[in-house]
């Protein structure tokens, strides 16, 4: 029979639109408006999964995102998506779903044998059992344990789906489109605010969708129609608010119809001036032996399946409760034709409740609890007992449970606002919220419909008024709220069997007791020891029961136990949604120099340098980087090379106090720098550690042109802006980044002066006109051009800066002219190697840990005037003589090489620990015919000439080296001065 549990009429489904789907390969049919869970139940499917640890059969327990049991894997191949609650999946034509965590089949799962070993698998078992016999034993056991326990299996193939990120703004955001949320949104929009209403479901209405009361259904219809007509109210269905962040920012994830070409999910960052939290409440289970069997279901879920989806989940139903709310479910189920018995643990009931049950012919057993559920793959019977009375077996195919309600306080707690416990409803409600934050309805403990709507209307108006001084709307106590007073969801256990507190993580009542007896007294410790409250559902149905149990065991009020910390996300969010379109080639933006296209056209192998793409080496110099960079070094040393240095940070500095600014930010002095000259400078952080090095050229009395390293350009610019805007607001200086405005190239080598003279005849590069550190400014073809005689390689060298749009043309022109002088392009590998030969420090040495003295630059520091970092660089720890200092290293083994990162030990010293220092930069030196390196070494006494061992633990290499001066080439600077 097709859909044997589907009623002929009723519900918010469209019976004219059947939809075929498969579950574990079995073809079934549901209707538009179904969830996968409701469609499975309509088809009589009660067994949908296996539990995490014991592989016990599990069914559908809830009707919303709090579902702990019915996790399925959707789709196939690379689109395979595991651990999705069937209760949240909107049924679509052709949907493919699969149960998980079972083998070989759902009905016959071999790993269900775990149940036999249950005594060994109690809370913390792996901490106790798998720690020996050796320290590494855990490594052996772990893969097996992980394989035995777990959830679904994700695809390892690239995600084929597309994702988006979008920004939205609203005056008022209402989270939750139940009756309180609908009322709040209508009120806020009615007051003229721009409102966004967020609902995780694909229909608005919340609890009103699950009602059989025609008046309530009409109320929902009226409110949803009103919302449809309000132009300043936008409804985001299928959208979950998963996190609340600073500045009223809500993280939302919106599910889309990706089967028809849309993106799969959109991450929406919603910034709202006011937020109304109408997130409702989640019904709590009852804890008794075998309470996890398929066919045990929350009473509210059974009612939702009946009234919203037209599915009657059982024919002989026991409704076990400790509060009034389950009576409505019991009566609706009885009205639908089921044989219903109410089992109420309370001895005294409100007369209205008793009359309501009587009127519908539903028997009520007071002071009675469920002792145990019988049945394995499906509930067959329950064992009941009245207080002090005999046990009674009652046949049943569905057990509806209700242990009260837990307000959904996750979002309101995300910013560190601890929820507070209300004894009268035995639940936690939001703590004191900040300005422009309001609650309405069940989230604040107001469970009756009229009260929720009244609160929603009030909160919506307050939110629209943007009056941040008003507190959250006070909770309205309704008749139902009164009847929830101080209930415990866990009855004393009289029968054997596992009584589950956390269904998803297979945490039982005994586990909680064990944890308590072993000293895990705080809620946070209980969570980590037992895994209670972890997993994809994050304990939405289990946490409050567990806290109540802990309070009982400690003989303390629940408020004293407190809750664990609520952190985003409320429900799982696909990593793809967080990334949005920033994947593949858009993983991060790429930065290109003005000469980028030339490099590609001329055989450059590019390398990433931060966001930049830079020429690593040119294939014209060699087939591999090892070949090419050595060839490139040779022609720089012997003739000339040209390198794209446009990536250097460039800062235009102007103002009468520019010199004072430079004196403060650099360690060295700038007052006497002449116009038309440049100087090398080093800047420190506040704490005395070197931040960066670079140059500054004086272009005019009040005008300087600074350069920074490529890597630190953004940091230095931010640092300068920070200082000028906060600490030195009195300085008459403007610093502006002009990195993008200037293309830059370095022409280095003995022929560089002749090349410049030929290529740029407008400028005189002679030593008289342009001495070392001299700067010339002018124009070429109507575009500004600057030449600075500065060297990084140790050769006679010039840095040419030209307007960015003229960069490529100037580069080509200089290369064309320079060809006859042996000029060729070189990449950053050769650039770095040349500076190692010359002993210049760079990023590997300026690594955020080194001081001026460590780098041998201490003499640069001004003695008479303070500068940034001048005080804290004098800290005793930074002045210790044993600190590793910059040294040069020569490889002593001709057939072997030095490597960056190798740890330095003295000869004969055990190669263990951090050693005496490390190698920072390495190159083959074609000039010296050996591997050389820069490093930081902290040996005692005169270290020059000392033999050390460079140990590379990852490669298991030990190479002998000798410590030498860090300048390997031309220490007198003859080449530099041409």
């Amino acid at each position, binding site marked *: 029979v097709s859909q044997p549990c589907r009623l002929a009429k009723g519900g918010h489904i469209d019976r004219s639109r059947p939809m075929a789907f498969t579950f574990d390969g079995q073809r079934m049919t549901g209707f538009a408006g179904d969830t996968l869970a409701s469609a499975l139940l309509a088809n009589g499917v009660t067994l949908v999964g296996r539990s995490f640890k014991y592989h016990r059969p599990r069914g559908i327990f809830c009707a919303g995102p709090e579902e702990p049991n019915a996790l399925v894997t959707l789709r196939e191949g690379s689109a395979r998506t595991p651990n999705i609650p069937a209760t949240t999946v909107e049924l679509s034509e052709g949907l493919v779903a699969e149960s998980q965590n079972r083998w070989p089949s759902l009905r016959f799962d071999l790993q269900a044998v775990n149940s036999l070993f249950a005594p060994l698998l109690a809370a913390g078992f792996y901490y106790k059992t798998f720690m020996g016999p050796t320290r590494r034993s855990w490594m052996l056991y772990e893969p097996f344990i992980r394989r035995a326990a777990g959830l679904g299996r994700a695809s390892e193939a690239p995600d084929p789906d597309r994702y988006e990120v979008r920004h939205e703004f609203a005056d008022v955001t209402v989270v939750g489109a139940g009756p309180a949320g609908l009322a709040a949104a209508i009120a806020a929009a009615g007051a003229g605010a721009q409102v966004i209403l967020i609902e995780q479901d694909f229909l608005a209405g919340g609890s009103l969708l699950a009602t059989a009361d025609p008046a309530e259904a009409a109320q929902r219809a009226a409110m949803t129609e009103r919302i449809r007509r309000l132009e300043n109210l936008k409804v985001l269905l299928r959208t979950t608010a998963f996190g609340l962040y600073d500045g009223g920012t809500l993280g939302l994830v919106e599910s889309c119809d990706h089967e028809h070409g849309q993106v799969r999910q959109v991450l929406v960052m919603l910034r709202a001036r006011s937020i109304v939290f109408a997130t409702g409440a989640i019904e709590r289970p009852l804890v008794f032996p075998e309470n996890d069997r398929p066919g045990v279901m929350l009473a509210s879920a059974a009612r939702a399946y009946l009234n919203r989806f037209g599915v009657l989940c059982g024919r002989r139903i026991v409704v076990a409760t400790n509060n009034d709310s389950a009576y409505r479910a019991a009566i609706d189920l009885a009205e639908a034709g089921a044989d219903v018995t109410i089992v109420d643990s309370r001895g005294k009931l409100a007369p209205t409740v008793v009359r309501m049950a009587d009127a519908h012919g539903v028997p009520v057993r007071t002071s009675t609890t469920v002792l145990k559920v019988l049945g394995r793959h499906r509930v067959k019977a329950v064992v009941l007992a009245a207080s002090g009375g005999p046990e009674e077996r009652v046949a049943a195919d569905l057990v509806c449970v209700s242990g009260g309600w837990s307000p959904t306080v996750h979002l309101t707690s995300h910013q560190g606002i601890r929820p507070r416990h209300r004894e009268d409803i035995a639940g936690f409600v939001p703590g004191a919220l900040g300005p422009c934050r309001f609650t309405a309805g069940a989230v604040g403990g107001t469970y009756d419909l009229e009260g929720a709507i009244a609160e929603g209307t009030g909160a919506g108006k307050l939110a629209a008024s943007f009056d941040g001084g008003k507190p959250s709307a006070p909770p309205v106590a309704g008749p139902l709220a009164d009847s929830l007073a101080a209930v415990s969801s866990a009855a004393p256990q009289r029968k054997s069997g596992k009584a589950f507190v956390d269904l998803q993580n297979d945490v039982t009542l005994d586990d909680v007791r064990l944890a308590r007896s072993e000293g895990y007294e705080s809620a946070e410790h209980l969570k980590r020891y037992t895994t209670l409250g972890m997993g994809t559902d994050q304990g939405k149905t289990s946490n409050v029961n567990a806290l109540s149990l802990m309070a009982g065991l400690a003989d303390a009020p629940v408020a004293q136990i407190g809750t664990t910390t609520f952190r985003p996300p409320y429900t799982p969010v696909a990593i793809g949604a967080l990334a949005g379109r920033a994947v593949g080639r858009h993983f991060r933006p790429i930065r290109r*120099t003005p000469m980028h296209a030339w490099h590609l056209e001329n055989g450059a192998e590019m390398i990433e340098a931060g966001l930049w793409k830079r020429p690593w080496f040119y294939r014209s110099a060699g087939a591999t980087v090892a070949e090419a960079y050595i060839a490139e070094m040779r022609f720089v040393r012997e003739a000339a090379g040209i390198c794209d240095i446009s990536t250097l940070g460039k800062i235009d500095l*102007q103002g009468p106090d520019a010199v004072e600014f430079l004196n403060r930010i650099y360690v060295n002095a700038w007052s006497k720098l002449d116009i038309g000259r440049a100087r090398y400078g080093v800047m420190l952080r506040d704490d005395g550690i070197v931040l960066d090095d670079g140059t500054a050229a004086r272009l005019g009395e009040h005008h300087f042109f600074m350069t920074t390293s490529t890597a630190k350009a953004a940091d230095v610019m931010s640092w300068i802006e920070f200082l000028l805007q906060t600490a030195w607001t009195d300085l008459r200086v*403007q610093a502006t980044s*002009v990195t993008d405005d200037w293309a830059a190239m370095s022409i280095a080598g003995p022929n560089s002066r002749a090349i410049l003279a030929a290529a740029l005849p407008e400028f005189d590069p002679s030593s008289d006109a342009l001495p070392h550190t001299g700067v010339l400014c002018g124009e070429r073809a109507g575009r500004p051009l600057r030449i600075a005689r500065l060297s990084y390689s140790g050769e006679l060298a010039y840095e040419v800066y030209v*307007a960015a749009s003229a960069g490529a043309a100037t580069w080509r022109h200089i290369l064309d002219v320079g060809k006859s002088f042996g000029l060729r392009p070189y990449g950053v590998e050769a650039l770095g190697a040349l500076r190692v030969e010359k002993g210049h420090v760079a990023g590997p040495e300026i690594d955020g840990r080194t001081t001026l003295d460590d780098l041998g630059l201490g003499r640069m520091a001004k003695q008479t005037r303070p500068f940034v970092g001048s005080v804290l660089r004098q800290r005793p720890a930074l002045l210790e003589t044993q600190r590793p200092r910059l040294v040069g290293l020569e490889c002593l083994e001709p057939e072997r090489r030095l490597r960056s990162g190798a740890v330095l030990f003295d000869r004969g010293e055990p190669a263990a620990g951090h050693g005496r220092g490390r190698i920072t930069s390495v190159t083959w030196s074609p000039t010296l015919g050996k591997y050389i390196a820069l490093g930081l070494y902290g040996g005692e006494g005169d270290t020059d000439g000392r033999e050390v061992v460079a140990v590379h633990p990852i490669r298991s290499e030990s190479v002998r080296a000798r410590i030498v001066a860090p300048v390997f080439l031309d220490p007198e600077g003859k080449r530099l001065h041409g």
Partner: protein
Amino acid sequence: MAENGAGQSFVMEEMRGWSLVQVAGWHDSVAAIEQDIARVCGIAPPAEVGGVAVAGAISLIRVGPGRIWLIDEVGEVFARMAAAIDPTQGCVTPLGEGRRRFRLSGERVPEALKSLVALDLAAPSLAPGRAALTMMHRVPVLLHRVASTTFDLYVSTTFSVSLEEWISEAAA
């Protein structure tokens, strides 16, 4: 040009032939600089950050408390401005070489911008004739709302190819 199913358009074109200079003063000379700008450009600079003043071919955008961008569609303003500013009072820095300017126009642009920048286009601070410095794909940009569905985007040259592709795909 890209068009969606509803026939709404999104056009992105690069603007050429313009120039950009930044004029900045110090804490005690901003007022004097503003007067110099007004004298050269024939219009007073906007008082608020994000404000835009337009006179003929010149647009003045206030990008910071003491910083004003001058955009000249004809490209002549730099020399006149540099001559007008006393270097003890303020400074002029040409920035046009480091920026590309894209004009985004069409009914679909405001919606597409939702996935590109974290700005509330309905806010008064981004009404037509206003501008904002913001981030797009983690890159700093200036967005000038020229008209309701027309925006000028000033992008760093070195990032511009990457952002051009990023925007084109968002509009597709």
